[in-house]
């Protein structure tokens, strides 16, 4: 994928405009000029279209801000791969974990990652900074400096900060600068040898389980530490109903706490592991059906602030192993929109509310200039058909890795076009 020249004026006509930031859901159009949106609104172009603009007929399909994915992993330094997968899924802004190679615990790396990813794939990649040096959970990383260089939040990626004192100090220090800490809530010793959810299925398969308490203990601890320090915490990929009860109660008490979940936790349950299916080996593990239902309720009532794809590409060599030895994680960006739309098709959320969870809300949480259709904003748009059916097939994925827990699943809703900074970077039917 190469950068084209800066585009001129483009008029997107005949669209169903969806802007979760303003609650707009109406027929209309968008006019972009170069990298920016000039005008967007209901009824725009009803009477006339600018003569100097290139017309893009959306044919009545939905036009919304590009997706903002607040949690992806970049495998080593494979930035190109991320871009292809992102734009095919309608993701225009993505935030990557600091567990890249090298680890993002230094200012120079923050700048390098953002630049390298952008250059390779057009998608706008913002990095999280490491919360502790080397992600080792001991010494605090230079959070202030990293934030100055562009880190949008701080996390130890796929590990919780196990040491309570370190976490307390991190929250306290981060509060000094108003920085957000993102926690992977999993008590490491309780989860140590576990490879799937603890329960009947694990017992039948003879696999070691990870109890829901591993998640609860860290959430409960961190909530206490937030109260103690005044810091802000965000819990990533929450997977259990009991976690939501804790977070809901904390929000009711006015604590500065937020959380996200990922599609596997509302679209799948532990039975997806089936016969040792390593594509369904995720971290946190897929939970019981009651948890899945509770996660949907958390999305409905606003306890969950965002949906992140948790995109984690893994090579075939790392997945085609006995279940206990296989790597965790699944692809997520290409199925993010369609899995979120399942919530709409199943009557759990309105289309605007579902979109909000993958555009405006994550953008607001991290203070990113994205997720809105407004004059002056970057022209990051997607055109999608919420009803178009397709089947997830590893051979058709744009990612080099093929490990999706949704492999073989029929989905409804597909990205047709992705536009970043005014440039068409993905066109399904081209």
């Amino acid at each position, binding site marked *: 994928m190469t950068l084209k020249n800066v585009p001129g004026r483009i008029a997107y006509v005949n669209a169903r405009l969806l802007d979760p930031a303003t609650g707009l859901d109406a027929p209309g159009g968008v006019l972009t000029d170069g990298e920016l949106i000039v005008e967007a609104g209901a009824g725009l172009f009803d009477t006339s279209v600018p003569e100097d603009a290139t017309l893009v007929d959306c044919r009545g399909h939905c036009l919304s801000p590009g997706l903002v994915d607040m949690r992806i992993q970049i495998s080593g330094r494979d930035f190109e791969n991320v871009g292809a997968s992102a734009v095919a899924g309608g993701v225009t802004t993505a935030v990557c974990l600091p567990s890249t190679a090298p680890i993002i615990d230094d200012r120079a790396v923050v700048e390098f990652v953002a630049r390298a990813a952008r250059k390779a794939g057009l998608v706008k990649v913002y990095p999280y900074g490491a919360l502790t040096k080397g992600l080792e959970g001991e010494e605090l990383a230079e959070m202030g400096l990293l934030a100055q260089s562009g880190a949008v939040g701080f996390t130890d990626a796929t590990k919780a900060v196990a040491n309570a004192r370190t976490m307390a100090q991190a929250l306290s220090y981060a509060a000094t600068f108003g920085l957000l800490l993102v926690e992977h809530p999993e008590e490491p010793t309780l989860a140590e*040898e576990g490879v799937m959810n*603890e*329960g*009947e299925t*694990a*017992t*039948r*398969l*003879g*696999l*070691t*389980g990870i*109890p829901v308490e591993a998640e609860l203990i860290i959430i409960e601890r961190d909530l206490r530490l937030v109260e103690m320090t005044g810091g802000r915490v965000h819990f990533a990929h929450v997977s259990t109903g009991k976690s939501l009860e804790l977070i809901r109660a904390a929000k009711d008490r006015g604590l500065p706490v937020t959380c996200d979940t990922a599609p596997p936790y509302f679209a799948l349950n532990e039975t997806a592991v089936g*016969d*040792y299916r390593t594509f369904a080996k995720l971290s946190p593990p897929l939970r019981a059906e009651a948890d899945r239902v509770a996660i949907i309720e958390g999305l409905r009532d606003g306890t969950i602030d965002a949906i992140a794809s948790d995109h984690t590409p893994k090579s075939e*060599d790392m997945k*085609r*192993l*006995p*279940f*206990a*030895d*296989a790597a965790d994680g699944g692809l997520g960006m290409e199925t993010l929109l369609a899995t979120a739309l399942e919530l709409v098709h199943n009557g759990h959320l309105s289309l605007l509310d579902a979109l909000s969870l993958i555009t405006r809300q994550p953008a607001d949480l991290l203070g990113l200039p994205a997720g809105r259709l407004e004059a002056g904003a970057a022209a990051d748009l997607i055109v999608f058909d919420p009803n178009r059916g397709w089947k997830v097939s590893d051979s058709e994925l744009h990612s080099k890795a093929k490990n999706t827990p949704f492999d073989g699943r029929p989905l409804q809703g597909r990205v047709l076009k992705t536009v970043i900074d005014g440039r068409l970077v993905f066109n399904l039917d081209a």
Partner: protein
Amino acid sequence: MSKTPFDSSVFPQRHLLGIEGLSPLDISLLLDRADEYVELNRSVGGKLDTLAGRTVINLFYESSTRTRTSFELAGKRLGSDVINMSVSTSSIKKGETLIDTAMTLNAMHPDVLVVRHASSGAVKLLSEKVNCAVINAGDGRHEHPTQALLDALTIRRRRGHLDGLQVAICGDILHSRVARSNIHLLNTMGARVRLIAPKTLLPAEAERLGVEVFHDMKAGLKDCDIVMMLRLQTERMKTNFFPSVREYYNFFGLDYSKLEAAKPDALIMHPGPMNRGVEIASDVADDIGRSAIREQVEMGVAVRMACLEVLTLNLEREAVA
């Protein structure tokens, strides 16, 4: 000894990966066939040529003299060529080895692969990559189907039936593939199963496997027909599952005082190797009248002969089809 003609088409499985999913008919068929082989094995020089020209490979990623020898003997008594392959545990950490080995072995065209592996599900993964029949000789904590079959054969020969029996499985259930296979088999055949263990050695939601759970030996053994003891798998224990061997033996080791709670003629079983004085008292283990432990070993060969035969005949049938 002559052999009864046998219609393999009634056993529809290509592999024997576990007991879960087998029907009562499948299990009875294997047990009936094994029953015949018990007599053959007791005769001097008893050997058949049922599997002449066939190759059985024992692929063991975990060391096990007993099970491997039993399969080796079973294969040889049926006239097959048997090759033993032990794979060092250090090389299996690199997981590609499993698939690579499967590919290599597949190219040698064996008829049956007998596989033991430390990871649950590894044998199934391997079975998807080869053309021959695969027998699970124990995968992680998952299943050990031939052990459950030999236990069932032992019980059936002593009691005449499996249905309606009250069976207690005691000890380290958490780490035991033997327990899982036995639970499936005994439930399928109409026996009632109790598990007796400290909570730390029971897997989550064990009750949902259709068993009753006890933490007290005397309460659990009350009126049981069969007492199956399990080996404490200390090699799989990294942390504190119990405070000491002394304490474990005191509460969960089988001795005569605890055995009093079971039926007077209760049969005592153990898959071996035993830790005497840890999970079972020596005098109980050696009680000729009540212990069936040595008989279990004998049944093992017969059961494995039946499994090898049935799966190989399936291959023949497939080839004809």
